[in-house]
Each structure stands twice: as structure tokens, then as C-alpha cells.
């Protein structure tokens, strides 16, 4: 009997895993089904460029079907329950679906109501609608206090607020309103963002661009009327335009299934990505509790590890060791403004050593954004 493989989530982690599994296993040996609520695959790194006016939002979403191999079945439906003990998931419309192997790639989601006042008092670029609204706010900004910060940890793409600060500084300069604007960057940590070596690289650039960095600012509340942020550490910051990364949470279906043990993120083994306590359920991408960057590239490097383990189990063969362990590999670009960028490549044991910002890495990031659709989801990169 053919094995039933279900992949939950049609983002970068889910689409790539489903395609890699189908490539490794003949259709007669397994049926691969991918379930996604919207049936749309959204390229979230593009939101940054929507906010700064460089990219049109319409180009960032594609039909999941167009990215999947023909031998992967797409089910456009919302998973509302997971019963791991029984090997079943429940879909909102299609009812109960059984599985032999399950992959959770349900991502991370914005929780705008976790910080009082955030929804009405601040802007963000962490959804398409948010990025489009922020683009308008930046287009009509005539100067004043721009504050960029983080309203909850962890959040996806740790360098994104730093990149936004640099790109917004460029934009305001081009618009002729930079002289009338102060820019404050509020970090919840005692450096620019999680990664130490890259923080050391960007902090002098903040100084060069006249962006004031404030450390240990964990936003507790936003007062939309007085336009003031209050931090848990007891500081207050007035603003005219506040751009805050919203707190993130796990997908409701995963949290309510009990697989997260009451938290938001699915605990997984750092090497195999098997969900703790499960023998046939894996998780990848933003959904896991791994203490590494929540990034598309993380999911990208994790997907082959899960595909190899499932293919080995279905094929009754041992998994190839080097292909079935995740070593914590992540690769990210980091825009530093003025048409330049740097790049970080790291894993569990090796922190990144980012090169001096250059035009090359900026162009590489733009080229990657375009090539994405034809390479990453299909496993060609």
C-alpha cells in the first residue's frame, strides 16, 4: 500500500519539502499531499522593498500549484486539528485525513494584539498589507521622529529591521526630508540584532548615517494618541512614525494540537528535525523552536534533511547520514543602504564573518529575489 505523506503549509519550507520528497519516491510508493490554507505562496522578503517603494506587491504571490511538481497533490484547505497519536489531521472543509508521515511547515504569524496600542499606533512591513500602508506613510512623511524597533522576540529575518532603517534613511534623503528627520533604532538586545559579528559591522554604519541606536528596548506599550512608546526597561520614546516588528506566534493548529507543549514553537531535534516525542512527524522553517534565525534560507537548508529521512523510511533503506542531519546552516543578505549590502553564512558551530558591505552583495540579493521563483521551491538552488 502506498505511504500517505502530508505536508502542512505551502510556504518555502512546505513546497520545497513536498517537491523533494516526490522527487525521491516513486508515485506508486507514496502519495504526497500538501495542504495550504490560501493556496498562495508569498515571497515575504519582498515586503521590505514594497515598503520602500522599489517593488510592486502584486509580484510577490503565486499559486502554490504552479510551484509544485505534478506528482504532488495540492489541497487548499485549513488544517484545524492534529491528532498525532492517531496519525490524523482535521481539515476545515474536507474533514479528517490520515497520514503515515507528517511535515509541519506552518510558519510564524503576526500577533498584533500582544502589545497594547501596537495595532493602531505603529506601522510595520511584516505583511503585504502592512508594507503597502507603510509605503504610503513614508511617501507622505514630511519629517519628524522616525522610530524603528522590535515589539517581540523571536521574529523572522532578524536583520530585517536594520535593513529597513538603512533603506528608509536612503529614501528620506532622496525625498529631501532627511534633514528634518531624526531616526532612532530600538533594539531589544544590547546590540543591533541577534547575530553578534554582523551587529558589530552595522553599528558604525548607524553612526555614519546619523541613526541613533538604543539597546535593551523591549516595547511594552504604544500610546497611539500621545505617540509614545514605553519599554519594559522603563524608557519612553516619542515618535511621529513608528515602525515596529510585531510579536510573532505559531500557527493556531500546531499550538492547539499540544505539539508545542504550551509554547508557540514546535520543539524539534536540532539534527533530525523530528518533533520531540514523535517518530513520524517533522517540523521545519519558522514553526520550530530552534535557536537560529527564522528565515526562508533556514527552511531551504532543512527541507532536504526531512525529505531524505522520509524517503529512506518509505524505501526501507538506511538514510544517508550527511543528507539526513541539519547542521544549522543559514544564509542571509543584509542591506546596508547606499546601494550596498553584506552577507551572512553560518551554522550551529560557526558564527558568520560578514564581508565589508559592497555593491556586489546588494545586486546579488536583488538577483536572488528574482531567481527565487524558478530555483528555491523546486530545489534547483
Amino acid at each position, binding site marked *: 500500500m502506498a505511504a500517505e505523506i502530508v505536508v502542512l503549509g505551502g510556504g518555502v519550507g512546505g513546497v520545497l519539502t513536498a517537491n523533494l520528497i516526490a522527487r525521491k519516491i516513486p508515485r506508486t510508493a507514496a502519495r504526497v499531499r500538501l495542504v495550504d490554507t490560501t493556496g498562495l505562496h508569498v515571497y515575504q522578503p519582498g515586503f521590505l522593498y514594497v515598503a520602500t517603494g522599489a517593488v510592486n506587491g502584486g509580484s510577490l504571490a503565486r499559486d502554490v500549484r504552479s510551484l509544485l511538481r505534478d506528482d504532488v497533490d495540492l489541497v487548499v484547505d485549513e488544517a484545524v486539528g492534529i491528532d498525532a497519536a492517531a496519525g490524523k489531521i482535521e481539515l476545515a472543509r474536507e474533514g479528517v485525513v490520515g497520514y503515515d508521515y507528517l511535515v509541519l511547515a506552518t510558519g510564524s504569524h503576526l500577533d498584533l494584539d500582544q502589545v497594547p496600542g501596537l495595532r493602531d499606533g505603529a506601522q510595520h512591513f511584516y505583511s503585504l498589507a502592512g508594507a503597502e500602508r507603510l509605503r504610503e506613510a513614508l511617501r507622505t512623511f514630511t519629517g519628524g521622529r522616525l522610530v524603528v524597533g522590535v515589539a517581540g522576540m523571536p521574529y523572522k529575518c532578524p536583520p530585517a529591521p536594520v535593513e529597513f532603517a538603512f533603506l528608509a534613511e536612503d529614501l528620506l534623503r532622496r525625498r529631501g526630508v532627511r534633514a528634518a528627520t531624526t531616526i532612532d533604532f530600538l533594539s531589544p538586545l*544590547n546590540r543591533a540584532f541577534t547575530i553578534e559579528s554582523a551587529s558589530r559591522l552595522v553599528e558604525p554604519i548607524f553612526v555614519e548615517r546619523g541613526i541613533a541606536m538604543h539597546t*535593551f528596548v*523591549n516595547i511594552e506599550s504604544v500610546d497611539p494618541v500621545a505617540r509614545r512608546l514605553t519599554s*519594559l*526597561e*522603563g524608557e519612553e520614546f516619542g515618535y511621529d512614525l513608528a515602525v515596529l516588528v510585531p510579536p510573532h506566534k505559531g500557527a493556531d493548529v500546531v499550538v492547539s494540537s499540544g505539539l508545542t507543549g504550551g509554547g508557540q514553537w514546535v520543539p524539534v531535534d536540532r539534527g533530525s528535525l523530528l518533533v520531540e516525542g514523535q517518530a513520524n512527524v517533522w517540523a521545519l522553517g519558522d514553526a520550530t523552536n530552534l535557536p537560529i534565525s527564522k528565515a526562508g534560507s533556514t527552511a531551504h537548508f532543512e527541507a532536504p534533511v526531512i525529505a531524505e529521512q522520509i524517503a529512506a523510511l518509505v524505501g526501507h533503506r538506511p538514510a544517508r547520514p550527511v543528507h539526513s542531519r541539519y547542521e544549522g546552516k543559514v544564509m542571509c543578505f543584509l542591506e546596508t543602504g547606499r546601494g550596498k549590502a553584506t552577507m551572512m553564512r553560518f551554522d550551529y558551530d560557526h558564527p558568520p564573518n560578514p564581508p565589508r558591505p559592497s555593491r556586489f552583495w546588494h545586486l546579488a540579493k536583488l538577483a536572488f529575489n528574482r531567481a527565487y521563483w524558478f530555483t528555491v521551491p523546486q530545489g534547483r538552488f
Partner: protein
Amino acid sequence: MATTINQEIDARGSFCPGPLMEMIRAIRESSVGQTVAVLSKDPGSRTDIPAWVAKARHEMVAIEDLDGYTRFVVTKAR
């Protein structure tokens, strides 16, 4: 007199900035006067946690070096 610990969090499996974020979360959820302990194996915690406690004006009760890890004890002061 030994301080009563209201909550102890084992963050030894997590590394930078995990233990600090655990401390921040626990202090945020505590009431004034309550004490939290966080266990960390991450060397960065030795600078990060005391620096955060000083900035946020809480009380650093103890930093104990134990068998391959450090225990940070903090009382919420305001």
C-alpha cells in the same frame, strides 16, 4: 537568609540570546518583589543578563557558577 525563588527556568539547552529572553519574559510576567532564576550555559549570558538587569533597574541577587553552567537570580524591583 536564602531568597525564595518564585520561578526557575532551565535555559541550558538554548543559546544566545535565548537565556536573556527567558529572563526578560519571566520578569515581565512576575509581580514586583518576586524572584526568578535562569540557568544558562551560554557564555554571552554573563555579560548580557547583568547588563539588562542594571538597565531595567531590577535587583541582581546572585550569579552562581555551577557545574558547567551559571545560575542568575534576579528580583523584580519595580
